[in-house]
């Protein structure tokens, strides 16, 4: 995110995402939304799904940046459990969320990020125990981020 959303707000968005997919009532709600509205299935996009869930930074500029960022994930690659996916990062996130929420035992979801420069823009999807204080298994979705102080295209030094 970084380049799309002010760095200070990124943890806030992450907190919103993680609390909406947390163990308990929140996850039960998501299962209900997927059952009734197929929220994480086409023709929905991450942009439309997160808008319906009211997940976004507070300020208008950062909100627009976040929605642009979600769209930019359509141009990234993805891997699932370290195996390359044929889907874009965006579509793989939707597919993994759908598969998880429609499974017999849906897992809570943990959203995190990693540096997106090298290799360029890959969404990593795994399952594991992200919290050292909990033995709960989460579907983990890590999205590539760019530093907000990264020089814009055209202003980068050629090596």
């Amino acid at each position, binding site marked *: 995110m970084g380049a799309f959303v002010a760095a200070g707000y990124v943890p806030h968005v992450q907190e919103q995402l993680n609390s909406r997919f947390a163990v308990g009532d929140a996850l039960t709600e998501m299962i*209900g939304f997927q059952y009734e509205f197929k*929220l994480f299935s086409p023709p929905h996009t991450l942009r439309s799904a997160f808008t319906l869930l009211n997940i976004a930074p507070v300020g208008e500029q950062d909100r627009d940046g976040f929605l642009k960022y979600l769209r930019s994930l359509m141009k990234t690659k993805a891997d699932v459990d370290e195996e390359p996916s044929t889907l874009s990062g965006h579509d793989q996130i939707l597919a993994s969320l759908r598969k998880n929420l429609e499974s017999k035992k849906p897992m809570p979801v943990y959203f995190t990020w990693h540096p997106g420069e090298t290799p360029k823009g890959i969404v990593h999807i795994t399952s594991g125990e992200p919290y050292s204080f909990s033995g709960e298994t989460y579907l983990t979705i890590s999205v590539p981020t760019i530093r907000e102080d990264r020089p814009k295209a055209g202003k980068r030094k050629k090596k």
Partner: protein
Amino acid sequence: MRGLRAKVREYYSGTIERHGPTPLGVDWPNAASQYLRFVQLLKVCDFERPFSLNDFGCGYGALLEYLAMRHSEAEIAYRGIDISVSMIAAARKRWADHRRVEFVVGSKCGRIADYSLASGTFNVRLGHPPAGWESYVEAMLSDLKACSRIGFAVNFMLPHDDIPTEDELYRSSPRRWVAFCRQELGCSVRVLRGYGLREFTLLIRRKPRTAAPRQAGSRKAARRSPR
């Protein structure tokens, strides 16, 4: 009751003024949860034929958004009622060019329709003692019945398993209100729960009027009637 209504009016006028015509403006966290509630409440309606609908506690008219999305073919004469003047002003502005839509300020339904819905209107009791709030809910349910030709639907939040109910909110088990609607209002009730939200929805229908017992003479008449 008047003080209680004034407090409710003030509360919801505050939310719409702070957040505008959005789910937060009517105290819902997001559109998805709002729509999921509408899905349940509208199960009381028969979409096969045209009908009239009272939307009590309509806010800015979010139900119309949902109806346009999922039931765009349905012929519905919609009437939104809300206790907050600011809510109704926002609703009138938003739905100004819609036909068969009316918004009125009120603390009761005020007019008979085929169906009435009330989404989330019993959830925020603003610190009022539960007994007083339950009297208010009883009065509102009686009014919803009086203003519904066929049936009405309402929802309530369920209690948490291990946390006491917040002072500001009202939570209840279905039993309390199913018993009231069956015994006091003489209606049939269907309970919906387990749809993803910590709440339940009651679909309440008027019972068809049973025919008055026939007098001795009318039995003969019935026998004579052509088959």
